[in-house]
């Protein structure tokens, strides 16, 4: 049967990017559909009636939602090429744990930086750096979170790097200064063609964030 793969996504979503990177790693042909989140398509509302969010992967008509669930699905179905998950159960559990940690902590801290001001912004910055430092210590001296090769946890985190320029510009700080090892890791990831080929230009992400800041009425001066 011919595979039909559709990805409902929004270009600046670090969650959607995860699916893009994984599909590219596996060499899967798919149709990318950009969603306007202020005017969601019927297909999105039908495929994800509970959360009404992107990304949604639709594989042969069957929708899968939640980026980390999608990542695991992609790895399990297209398992012949570029396995993302480690094979050892303990390492898999660790990869899941840290991906869960990223989702629970990093998004909200980052969001404070580009949507808030004053004390809340400063609190967001502090939290954000602390979380990145925790992740940096987890990386240790390895090339990737997956060890010698780029893996599941690398996919989960590298997509946030497209927002670093936005956080730095809005927050007035340098992520590289606080987390130099993580900065190096980002550079290493971007040397992988299917990673850099799947991620948007951080400048375009920043432009997008600026538009939203105007819409939210956040003082951009």
């Amino acid at each position: 049967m011919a595979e039909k793969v559709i990805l409902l996504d929004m270009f600046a979503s670090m969650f959607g990017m995860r699916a893009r990177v994984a599909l590219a790693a596996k060499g899967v042909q798919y149709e990318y559909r950009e969603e306007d989140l202020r005017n969601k398509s019927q297909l999105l509302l039908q495929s994800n009636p509970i959360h009404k969010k992107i990304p949604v992967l639709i594989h042969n008509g069957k929708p899968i939602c939640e980026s980390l669930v999608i990542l695991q699905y992609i790895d399990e179905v297209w398992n012949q090429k570029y396995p993302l998950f480690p094979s050892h159960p303990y390492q898999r559990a660790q990869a899941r744990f840290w991906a869960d940690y990223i989702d629970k902590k990093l998004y909200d801290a980052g969001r404070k930086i580009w949507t808030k001001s004053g004390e809340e912004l400063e609190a967001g910055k502090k939290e954000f750096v602390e979380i990145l430092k925790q992740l940096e210590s987890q990386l240790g001296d390895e090339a990737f979170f997956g060890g010698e090769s780029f893996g599941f946890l690398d996919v989960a985190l590298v997509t946030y790097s497209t927002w670093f320029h936005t956080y730095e510009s809005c927050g007035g700080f340098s992520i590289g200064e606080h987390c130099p090892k993580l900065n190096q890791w980002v550079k290493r990831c971007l040397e992988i063609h299917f990673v850099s080929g799947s991620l948007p230009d951080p400048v375009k992400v920043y432009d997008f964030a600026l538009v939203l800041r105007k819409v939210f009425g956040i003082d951009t001066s």
Partner: protein
Amino acid sequence: MGEVKLLGGLGFSPYVNRVEMALKLKGVEYEAIAEDLKNKSPLLLQYNPVHKKVPVLIHDGKGIAESLIIVEYIDQVWEGPSILPKDPYQRAMARFWAKFIDEKCISATWKACWSTGEEQAKSKDESVEALKFLEDEIKGKKFFGGDNIGLVDIAANFIGYWLPIISEVKGVQLLTEEDFPNLWRWANEYCSDNFVKEILPNKEALVARFKSR
């Protein structure tokens, strides 16, 4: 197979109970170590330094935290009945529903029971919305896992057992037979299952605990 220890609370946590269910399903022998969460042990702080919470599974000297992650780990390591389905799409669905239960159902229903005023009204609405989705999902099935208990049934343990008890204690009606006939049926099926019954905490003790909060 190496030594297995489970760091758990004083026996009342639904999260710890999930892990106990999984270990029991696989017939794994383990040492249960009680944890006083107001006075956390060095062992807990060592094996879960990030969140400092229970449950923590220590297997062969290595710690795994977060109940659903531990359950998946147990499913992979030990032989016995499968907790997750074999088919990748069904696995994705199981993971999706387990996450939904954790992120939407438990927090909303817990808040609805313990809060007051506007916050309670809002949480009640959120709970009803969340429970409706579960109600649709369980229709026509004995368990969320099909004929046998699976990941989603384990994840929904709070909904099946803890929630009715808290509702009774607090006088907040959420999961009623009238509003959610299928979920109600599942909850009864689940709690009267011979296997599950054995590891659920004692009802009177749980009631006393909630009354004392």
